[in-house]
């Protein structure tokens, strides 16, 4: 036997390479496999070698499962740690962390709301939901409109309001589970009051009626100044027009556009699925935690279904394989069925799928209930920004609060009284003289015009709801972009992965099947 040379053999010195994952061999006697040559690596301290692509695929699939993730980068035979390099910028790690935190918060939200539900059931579901609804509306339309339309005193709320308010949290939550997502929740809010008589107005006693839908003279309905002339208040659109037409249109355009954008950034769906495909089909990230939670819950309920067996002697163990010890026992989770359903995962396109599991449920509900607050914050930001950007001010239709207009006029001495429409009687004597059919027709007409054109109250007031809607739209855009960026970074991280290959330091040369060229 020739004297071994004074250097450590590397993977290139192996006569035959056998990938421990796909079991494909490469060597002088083997046919060269079709396709481009594959990169071989020796990532650990034992004799196992593998194709880099095979190993990366294995690592990726192992990382997806929380229970296997800790061992994803370990050699199954010698347990040495694989060294992996990839483009993993700080931003991506931060986002992953935040994502984890979000999941964590979702879980706590769920626990919190479970406790909350007990309280709610005790104290009255309706009251709680209504209180939330009122808060949501205040967030969304602003304090001024809220005081004007609703007031803080529930005694002023009309019955449609009392029906609508508690429906708000429900519709917000439901909207997250259907495909019509994100913008839809604002819809019910917008539609509540376009034509309702604002109790605040009446209760304040300043104005006998702010809208006076019933004209004094039925023959001059169109000229009646009690109804809004659209040309005066064309911008911003009325809540009704906005909710019925603008939102659905913008949403569908946005979705189509964003999907294209997404495909351009991330590559085709096929590519994405390949990326996501791993162990037994893809497991969405959320599932990882789901399994985890279930495990935790099971731990809590404490079955101790295990026995001691003896240490297994590895009887027939041959060759280089050290099979791990025979396993341990367990408690099966009857509720399982968690991770691996191929069928479902095929639908995982276009973001339409929502995993219904504990964690994401908490996150989804929590997120839905935060929509009014987010709208409010974004609207506020826009408002502040509009002070410096004239265009934005026009676009948002920012107006000073109603109260300040009147105060200002008073100071200047111009103000002589309430605007004419505020002083008009609620129901004119003419209207009372009309027959039932006439009353009905006139009422319907008024309602239609009001729906279309909005009420004066809506038009006159600072359109907080408008900038909040715009703000929420921007928030969705920003969120989607951040999400896309995250996925792009994650994809780049996966694609840039490389494992460090080591030489066979510390391994007896006799154990290796080396090329003759190594010894020469």
């Amino acid at each position, binding site marked *: 036997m020739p004297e071994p040379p004074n250097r450590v053999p590397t993977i290139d010195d192996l006569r035959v390479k056998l990938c421990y994952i796909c079991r494909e061999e490469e060597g002088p006697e083997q046919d060269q496999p079709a396709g481009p040559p594959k990169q071989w690596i020796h990532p650990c301290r034992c004799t196992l070698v593998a194709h880099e692509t095979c190993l990366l695929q294995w690592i990726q699939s192992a990382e997806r499962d929380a229970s296997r993730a800790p061992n994803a980068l370990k050699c199954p035979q010698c347990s040495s740690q694989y060294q992996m390099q990839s483009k993993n910028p700080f931003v991506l790690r931060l986002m992953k962390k935040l994502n984890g935190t979000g999941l964590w918060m979702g879980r706590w939200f769920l626990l919190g709301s479970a406790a909350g539900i007990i309280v709610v059931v005790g104290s009255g579901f309706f009251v709680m939901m209504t209180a939330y609804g009122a808060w949501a509306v205040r967030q969304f339309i602003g304090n001024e409109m809220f005081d004007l339309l609703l007031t803080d005193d529930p005694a002023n709320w009309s019955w449609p309001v009392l029906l609508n308010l508690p429906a708000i949290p429900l519709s917000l939550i439901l909207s997250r589970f259907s495909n019509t997502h994100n913008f839809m929740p604002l819809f019910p809010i917008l539609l509540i009051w376009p034509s309702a008589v604002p109790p605040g107005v009446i209760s304040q006693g300043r104005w006998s009626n702010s809208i006076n839908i019933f004209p004094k003279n039925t023959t001059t309905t169109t000229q009646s100044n009690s109804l809004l002339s659209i040309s005066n208040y064309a911008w911003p659109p009325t809540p009704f027009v906005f909710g019925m037409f603008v939102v659905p249109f913008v949403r569908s355009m946005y979705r189509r556009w964003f999907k294209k954008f997404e495909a351009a950034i991330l590559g085709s769906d096929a590519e994405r699925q390949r990326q996501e495909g791993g162990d037994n089909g893809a497991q969405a990230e959320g599932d990882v935690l789901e399994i985890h939670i279930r495990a935790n819950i099971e731990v809590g309920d404490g079955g101790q279904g295990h026995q001691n067996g003896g240490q297994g002697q590895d009887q*027939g163990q041959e060759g280089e394989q050290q099979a791990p010890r025979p396993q341990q026992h367990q408690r099966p989770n009857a509720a399982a069925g968690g991770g691996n359903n191929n069928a479902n995962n095929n639908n995982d396109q276009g973001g339409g799928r929502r995993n219904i599991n504990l964690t994401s449920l908490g996150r989804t509900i929590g997120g839905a209930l935060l929509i009014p607050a987010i709208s409010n914050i974004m609207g506020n930001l826009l408002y502040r920004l509009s002070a410096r950007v004239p265009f934005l001010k026009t676009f948002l239709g920012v107006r000073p609060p109603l109260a300040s207009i009147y105060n200002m006029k008073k100071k200047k001495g111009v103000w002589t009284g309430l605007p004419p429409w505020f002083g008009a009687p609620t129901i004119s004597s003419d209207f009372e003289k009309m027959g039932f059919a006439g009353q009905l027709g006139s009422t319907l007409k008024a309602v239609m015009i009001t729906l279309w054109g909005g009420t004066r109250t809506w038009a006159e007031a600072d359109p907080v709801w408008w900038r909040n809607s715009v703000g929420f739209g921007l928030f969705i855009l920003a969120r989607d972009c951040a999400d896309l960026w995250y996925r792009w970074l994650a994809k780049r991280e996966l694609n840039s992965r490389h494992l460090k290959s080591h030489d066979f330091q510390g391994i007896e040369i006799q154990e290796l099947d080396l090329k003759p060229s190594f010894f020469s």
Partner: protein
Amino acid sequence: MASISAKRLAKELKEIQTEGCPVGVNLLRADDFQTWLFSIEVMGESLYKGEVQTLQFRFDSNYPISSPAVQFLVRENEGIRAPIHPHVYSNGHICASILGTEWSPVLSVVAVCVTLQSMLASCKKKERPVDNDRYVLHAPENPKKTQFHYDDDTV
């Protein structure tokens, strides 16, 4: 083009055919790359002396990245039952970490057979898992869909 699993299984099958199975393990059926059947028997002195079990392997297209679904075959009407063992449920499902979280592509079908053989061989007391009835009642058809919790490190 054959999938990775088909290629690798073809290799494993060839090895079994040329080198034979370990003592006590026999290949019963491997007509395709979806389901294989082995018989396993514990050699030497053990609680299972004279018993021959049938082990069923099911592979998906991601094998060996994803673990095979392994269980003892149970055919009550043919008198084929799962061995009585604290880690084997009466429906044939096996709670073994190497079939779940500790699965690694370095393992093979034969290695799994051998490991399970030694699991039986080392058994001190023939009994079912304590939660057998509860588990079997709700168990998914495929044991891979069960999230076993391996908390007995003393085995």
